[in-house]
């Protein structure tokens, strides 16, 4: 009985909190994420085309070039202290592209430099991106096994 009353009290408070807390402006968020994220992708596409047309690269080399240049840009903008401002504005628009991945590795590297190269930078470098890598690699192994099995069966 006591417990039920407590639960009711917490539920009521939860409703009060929801009522008095303003929500995020989703529409504005979508628009900003779309144009910034889109712009990053357009830049990537231009790099790829430039690689193929001007440098005579193959398809695979051009996409490699694109990744390298975008990672360089993301890391540089993080170091200059600009990328967090872009992120605050664009949200997922600048987190999801590869530049966001570069930011997630460069920012802990800067942050934990004061704790030394081994226990600071070395240990914390993947503090943000670690989970993405772990589950990215695990799922790629799973997909690889399925692909291999499917090739055997069919």
């Amino acid at each position, binding site marked *: 009985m006591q417990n039920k009353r407590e639960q009711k009290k917490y539920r009521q*408070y939860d409703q009060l909190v929801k009522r008095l807390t303003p929500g995020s402006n989703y529409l504005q968020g979508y628009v900003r994420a779309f144009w910034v994220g889109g712009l990053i992708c357009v830049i990537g596409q231009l790099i790829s085309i430039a690689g193929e047309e001007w440098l005579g690269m193959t398809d695979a080399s051009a996409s490699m070039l694109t990744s390298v240049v975008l990672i360089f840009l993301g890391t540089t903008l993080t*170091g200059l202290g600009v990328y*967090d401002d872009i992120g605050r504005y664009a*949200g997922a628009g600048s987190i999801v592209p590869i530049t966001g991945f570069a*930011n*997630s590795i460069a920012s*802990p590297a*800067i942050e934990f430099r004061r704790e030394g190269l081994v226990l600071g930078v070395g240990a914390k470098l993947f503090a*943000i991106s670690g989970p993405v890598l772990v589950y990215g690699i695990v799922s790629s192994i799973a997909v690889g096994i399925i692909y291999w099995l499917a090739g055997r069966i069919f």
Partner: protein
Amino acid sequence: MNQTLFFKNRIAVRSRASMVGPKEGKGPLAEYFDVIMPDDLLGKPSWEQAESEMVRRTVLMCAEKGGLPAESISVVLAGDLLNQLMSSGFAARELGTPFFGLYGACSTFVEGLVLGSVLIDGGYRENAVCAASSHFCTAERQFRFPLELGTQRPPAAQWTATAAGAMLLDARKENAPAYVTHGTIGRVIDYQITDASHMGAAMAPAVADTIMAHFQDTKRDFRDYDLIATGDLGWIGRNLLKELLIQRGVKVDDEKLFDCGANLFYQEQDPHAGGSGCGCVASVTCGYLMKLMEQRDVRRLLVVGSGAMLSTTSQQQGESIPGIAYAACLEGE
């Protein structure tokens, strides 16, 4: 259950000092702070050392303003948000005074004020310096993400203030602008809030509980106070507190309810729901609120510091966020 201490002797607020970071120094209360730091580092190699330096300087400035040589400080009660109280402990190493390190999250300053008054009232200490600090950069890296990570903060999130405040208490007979007359010990209250970016919601029930206890123990209500100042509920938490008090039958006087965190920044400074951190209530009390008492615009003040007693571990293990609040009553002549 009685939670309020009635001090028998006059515990005088002899002096006060406050120091804030550059962003806080552009806020609406800027003119009331003693020192506005030109940058976040104070010439130190790390933010943690800078925060420690803030504590040290604020304590010394407070003693100096009170005419007390540093070696005559009989106890320093201080705390901050960092693991193992790094800022306060390392500041105390430099100060060399007797020291109590306190952790009450953002309520630490008021917790120290109550305990310091107890030590003086009991005749155990001649004076006490109560201090607390927080630093945006040290708190971010411990509780959240690296500074340069491009993330968005939800509307209910609060901005940890880079700030420190210190108050010198003693039992000397000379007149002082304010006296600590009561202290109310808080209880840890948990209303099952799990969103770590909504501290105001986690702490408001604890603040309501402590204010109710204070009113019951002292048989007072809003009419007996010129101002009731909460620490860092932010403006959303302040509205929640108002609702909770009204639900419990308190006649709330909206103009008398002031939140330090909600008033530390302008909205254009993008603090979302307001300022937070141990240094928020400490600097605003030692800067702005004590100025109001000195000018006699406020004769009787209830300052309620509130803290969210979470840790990064409790958060990862899925625990809800418990809150606590301490209250101290300050009265002018």
